[in-house]
């Protein structure tokens, strides 16, 4: 007999946010919604024990009351309607696990626990509405099940071990059948790859096992080897009128553009680029900094909380996997419009509001619990992300120089550390190479997981201690492909022999291939010399991390995987790692017409007459792509570790936008060096010109860093491409153009790429997302005392514009708001690097009171942001030398520009420093709380600071 425990608040209040969310989904009938917690126990307990359990662990004696009953008895009647939700078996449920552990500590019987949530709902709702409420808001069917009555607990089933290994004969299969097999087993391999595998095993005179086939599919997946970025590409570029401008063959995007740029720049402070889980640069001579940015798009589309949760977990694990201590995280998110009409939402996708709230909660949950400050990011909204949101997660780590060991030896033990293995995330690596469709939810449900940050926190502590005691000779994290990738990579040079029956499982019954491929989170593999195992075990106990020897490095250059002694995979390492056939792909870029064409009836304001420009600026400030992200930022801890010197929100009211985060790692306060994190992203430029998008995003990431105080000669950047299906020549063509921009942009700024990642196949029902390039920058600040923020500091200070403004409005916020297509996308200005060097010198000299980068909305938006951040006004006029129309000058998004605030006494010094550079005097900061922008023909903008603050903050 199982037991059900209900915990309800004593003063029952409706969950306001959930009711609002229900209304936003069109379920206006929901009046009140009362959540309660549910716990289930797999067997009965005495009333005394239940009483004790509830009093000590389950119900807060001040605010809550618990009731319990046998599961088959009817629970108390609900107020109004009832929906109950609980996890599917096998989904990570930390509450249930801690309940089981707590019961053991209390000396109670060893029972299984499960959890759930009960929602009592008041309102006029029919069954169809209740079903919608359950499916679209209260439950996620990827990881949960729900019921319109009392739900019955699902305990992890008791199952016998399953040693089934299937042989998969390929030798007689036709091309079509090979492809069908690839699709049905979710292998995501193309015909050439399937044939290569078929021929390899035909030559061996046997059929591959399922373990071998799955291992090859994972190791050869887009996710693991980046087939598109390594492919030979036949590229054709056409002008807007269709004439062929050039054709060329590219021997690998990664090698030809990204790596080549880094190799040509090769600064002496760059320690590792593109070879490991993350790029590594020198910090202070003693320590290095590692930086990596990943995406977790498809999982976040299906289960936003779990997808984003494990997105952070995954990138942090990447940093642990290069022996670094994680010290900060970043997140850049792209969602569909939050006010998208629910009844127009295509079948099979979650509402963008739900995706956004789930993703933010998932990032907050994992980052906050790991104790990492989330300090930099961006949030973009566009209809192009409706069916396929983007979730970029980044992590920075600190490690003593030279402490990351990568030389495993024959005889070293292969040791798994961390979480247990379940059916979590099977086929995650190959799933990321599949487009999303209505059916994806059903097929790929197992590819999404929920994270366990506390286990990962234990790994962080353990690996740092083990690194410092030099207990391992190599380390790698279990990401996509699980053990198959991690162990396969670790043994690539030497060969390995591992025993799967030793792997600690969450629940019994996994087949060998499932154990080998499982993408259960929070696992790290290390190679440990036998004499150091005992010490590693002691440390693992200390940090409460599970530690298991799986096998050893052999020297026989084969991948040997056993289950209870019997080989279930036995392949030469060189076939696994070098057998993948080279791809050749076709790419086509067709330029779009440049002249801007007005699609809407909204006239372009030509002057300030009638307040049209005022209204336009307020509209820009309130646009979701510009407006304050404070509601999201405050969900993340940005103070922990005590090193946040410039936070995401700045100014006296702590609510103005920062250009970059300035961080000082704990333990390095003995010197003054610090570092910044910043990013650049603009998919709207890319819709018109992906080449210039790449230039612009590189410039944006760099100028954001420089604005805060980074040394422009100590900046390293990361590329993250999220694109559509690259087997379509148009998608691949725009990707090629973006890569060309990356190469030219990196060289223009002498800034190397140190790491990158691509996420392709981002399409929903055949519609690609806007090709989106995120550039993330990590930069050194020589002395953290010399930094700048965007907030105006004092009335009377002078305002300058660094950089020239051109008529570059293609893809701009202005064009988007006024629905103008086409136009000139911002190009890279000449000599921008020298301008940034001069600005850096000015910041180090203490002359810059405030600096702010110009991006979306141009000068007008940036001035308004500096004013609102500093709660001071400004009076400026368009420089006499400007030949642009007032609208162009106000809203153009030309690159290479920053606004500077300078005290009058530094006027002459500044002029001398910037001699020969485009530094334009605009006006001054004013005590009077208004923003005034004048042109020759009169005032263009005249806005009260209060209105600016209200528009931008939304409150």
């Amino acid at each position, binding site marked *: 007999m199982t037991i059900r425990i209900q915990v309800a608040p004593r003063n029952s209040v409706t969950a306001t946010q959930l009711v609002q969310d229900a209304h936003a989904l069109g379920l206006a009938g929901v009046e009140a919604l009362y959540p309660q917690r549910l716990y289930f126990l797999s067997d009965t307990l005495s009333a005394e024990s239940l009483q004790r359990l509830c009093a000590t662990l389950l119900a807060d*004696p001040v605010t809550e009351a618990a009731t319990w009953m046998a599961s088959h008895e009817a629970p108390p009647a609900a107020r109004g309607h009832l929906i109950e939700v609980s996890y599917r078996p096998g989904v990570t449920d930390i509450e249930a696990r801690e309940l089981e552990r*707590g019961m053991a500590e209390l000396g109670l019987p060893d029972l299984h626990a499960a959890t759930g949530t009960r929602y009592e709902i008041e309102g006029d709702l029919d069954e169809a509405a209740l079903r919608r409420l359950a499916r679209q808001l209260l439950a996620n069917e990827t990881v949960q099940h729900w019921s319109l009555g009392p739900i019955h607990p699902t305990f992890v089933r008791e199952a016998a071990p399953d040693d089934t290994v299937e042989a998969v004969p390929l030798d007689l299969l036709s091309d079509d059948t090979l492809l069908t097999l690839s699709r049905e087993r979710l292998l995501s391999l193309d015909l050439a790859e399937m044939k290569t595998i078929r021929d390899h095993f035909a030559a061996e005179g046997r059929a591959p096992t399922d373990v071998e086939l799955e291992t090859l599919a994972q190791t050869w997946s887009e996710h693991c080897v980046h087939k598109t970025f390594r492919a030979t590409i036949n590229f054709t570029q056409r002008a807007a009128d269709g004439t062929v401008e050039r054709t060329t063959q590219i021997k690998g995007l990664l090698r030809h553009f990204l790596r080549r740029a880094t190799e040509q720049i090769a600064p002496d402070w760059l320690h590792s680029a593109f070879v490991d889980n993350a790029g590594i640069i020198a910090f202070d001579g003693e320590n290095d900094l590692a930086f990596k940015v990943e995406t977790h798009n498809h999982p976040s589309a299906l289960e936003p909380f779990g997808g984003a949760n494990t997105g952070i977990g995954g990138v942090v694990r990447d940093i642990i996997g290069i022996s670094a201590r994680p010290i900060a995280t970043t997140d850049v998110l792209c969602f569909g419009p939050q006010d998208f009409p629910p009844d127009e939402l295509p079948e099979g996708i979650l509402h963008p509001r739900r995706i956004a709230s789930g993703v933010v909660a998932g990032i*907050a949950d994992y980052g906050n619990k790991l104790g990492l400050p989330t300090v930099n990011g961006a949030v973009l909204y566009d209809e192009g992300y409706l069916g396929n949101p983007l979730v970029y997660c980044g992590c920075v780590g600190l490690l003593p120089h030279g402490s990351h060991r990568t030389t495993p030896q024959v005889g070293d033990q292969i040791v798994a550390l961390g979480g247990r293995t379940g059916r979590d995330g099977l086929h995650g690596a190959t799933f990321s190479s599949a487009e999303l469709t209505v059916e994806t939810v059903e097929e790929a449900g197992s590819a999404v997981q929920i994270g*366990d940050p506390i286990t990962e926190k*234990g790994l962080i502590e353990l690996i740092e201690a083990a690194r410092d005691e030099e207990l391992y000779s190599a380390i790698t994290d279990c990401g996509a492909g699980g053990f198959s990738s991690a162990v396969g990579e670790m043994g690539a040079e030497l060969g390995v022999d591992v025993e799967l029956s030793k792997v600690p499982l969450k629940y019994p019954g996994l087949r060998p291939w499932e154990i080998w491929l499982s993408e259960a989170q929070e696992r790290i593999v290390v190679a440990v010399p036998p004499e150091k195992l005992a010490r590693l075990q002691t440390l693992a106990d200390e940090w409460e991390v599970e530690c298991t020897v799986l096998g050893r490095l052999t020297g026989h250059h084969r991948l040997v995987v056993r289950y209870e002694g019997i080989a279930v995979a036995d392949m030469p390492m060189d076939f696994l790692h070098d057998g993948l056939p080279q791809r050749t792909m076709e790419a086509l870029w067709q330029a779009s017409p440049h002249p801007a064409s007005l699609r809407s009836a909204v006239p372009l304001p030509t002057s300030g007459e009638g307040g049209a420009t005022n209204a336009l600026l307020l509209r820009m400030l309130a646009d979701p792509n510009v407006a304050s992200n404070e509601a999201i930022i405050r969900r993340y801890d940005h103070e922990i570790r*005590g090193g946040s010197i410039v936070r995401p929100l700045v100014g006296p009211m702590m609510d103005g936008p920062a250009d970059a985060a300035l961080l000082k790692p*704990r333990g390095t306060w003995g010197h003054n060096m610090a570092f910044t994190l910043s990013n650049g992203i603009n998919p709207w430029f890319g819709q018109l010109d992906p080449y210039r998008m790449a230039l612009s995003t590189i410039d944006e990431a760099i100028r954001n860093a420089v604005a805060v105080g980074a040394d422009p000669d100590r900046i390293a950047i990361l590329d993250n491409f999220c694109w559509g299906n690259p087997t379509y020549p148009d998608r691949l063509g725009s990707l090629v153009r973006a890569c060309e921009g990356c190469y030219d942009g990196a060289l223009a700024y002498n800034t190397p790429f140190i790491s990158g990642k691509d996420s392709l196949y981002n399409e929903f029902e055949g519609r690609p997302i806007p090709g989106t390039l995120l550039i993330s920058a990590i930069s050194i600040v020589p002395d953290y005392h010399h930094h700048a923020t965007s907030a105006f500091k004092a009335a009377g200070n002078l305002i300058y514009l660094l950089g020239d403004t051109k008529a570059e409005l293609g893809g701009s916020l202005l064009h988007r708001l006024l629905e103008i297509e086409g136009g000139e996308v911002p190009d890279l200005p000449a000599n921008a690097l020298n301008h940034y060097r001069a600005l850096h010198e000015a910041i180090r000299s203490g002359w810059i009171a405030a600096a702010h980068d110009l991006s979306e909305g141009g000068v007008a938006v940036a001035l308004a942001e500096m004013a609102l951040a500093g709660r001071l006004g400004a009076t400026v006029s368009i420089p006499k030398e400007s030949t642009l129309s007032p609208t162009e000058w106000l809203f153009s998004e030309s690159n290479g520009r920053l606004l500077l605030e300078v005290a009058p006494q530094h006027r002459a010094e500044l002029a001398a420093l910037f001699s020969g550079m485009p530094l334009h005097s605009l006006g001054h900061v004013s005590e009077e709380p208004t923003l005034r922008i004048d042109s020759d023909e009169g005032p263009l903008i005249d806005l009260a600071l209060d209105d600016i603050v209200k528009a931008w903050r939304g409150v």
Partner: protein
Amino acid sequence: MTKPIVLIPHAPGTNRDGDAAHAIEMAGGEPRIVTLHALRADARPFREAEALLIPGGFSYGDALGAGQRWALDLSLFFLDELREFVESGKRVLGICNGFQVLVKAGLLPGDQAEGEPRNVTLTHNERGYFDCRWVHLSINPNSTASYLREIEGPIFCPIAHGEGNFQVRDEATLHRLTEDNLIAFRYVDRNGAPANGRFPLNPSGSVADIAGISNAKGNVLGLMPHPENHIMAVQNPVSNEGKGVGLALFEAMLG
């Protein structure tokens, strides 16, 4: 002069132990971070320490309520050590998760009779989610934790919590906390005027703007905000002048 040893226990999920240790070092103490696993094997660090600091974090992932599982550990495995520690008059400070642990283990306010349910708790923020922002804290000049009088208030430091909403069973409990000067810190505005429950001055919705309390003896103190994240002027987001005001709490505690 030997530095006073401050024991900083670490449960799975603890994460502001390093920040707390940094503050203790700067205040002239010697921090010792020891895992619960190690403490269960050997409780000597309790006897060697002159003060105990239970740091912030998400012990056991906040499962079953913030601080609940760690409080259970304390009451099952370290009851004697804690009792001895508190009765000897040594100082105990709980910050954020540490405060939650002290409350849920019954050590704060510490007036609960054996076997009786708690009268105070820290529950979910009124707005229902984790919140990170800087707050101002007034110090009760008559606090039972008399060392607080050495600190110039209000303290300016960040909060970072999801379950910092201090609540009481009834009016009588609140009355007793007030009358007995067990309320050590309250949320105020930047000029020191009461928050009166206004968000975001009182960010979690705590009754009577309570941010921290002490026991009757004054040697056990807990608060939700993080003075350990304002120990240097450069950490101050609004003005980079003056001494880091959170540091004063640690100096006074060790003084």
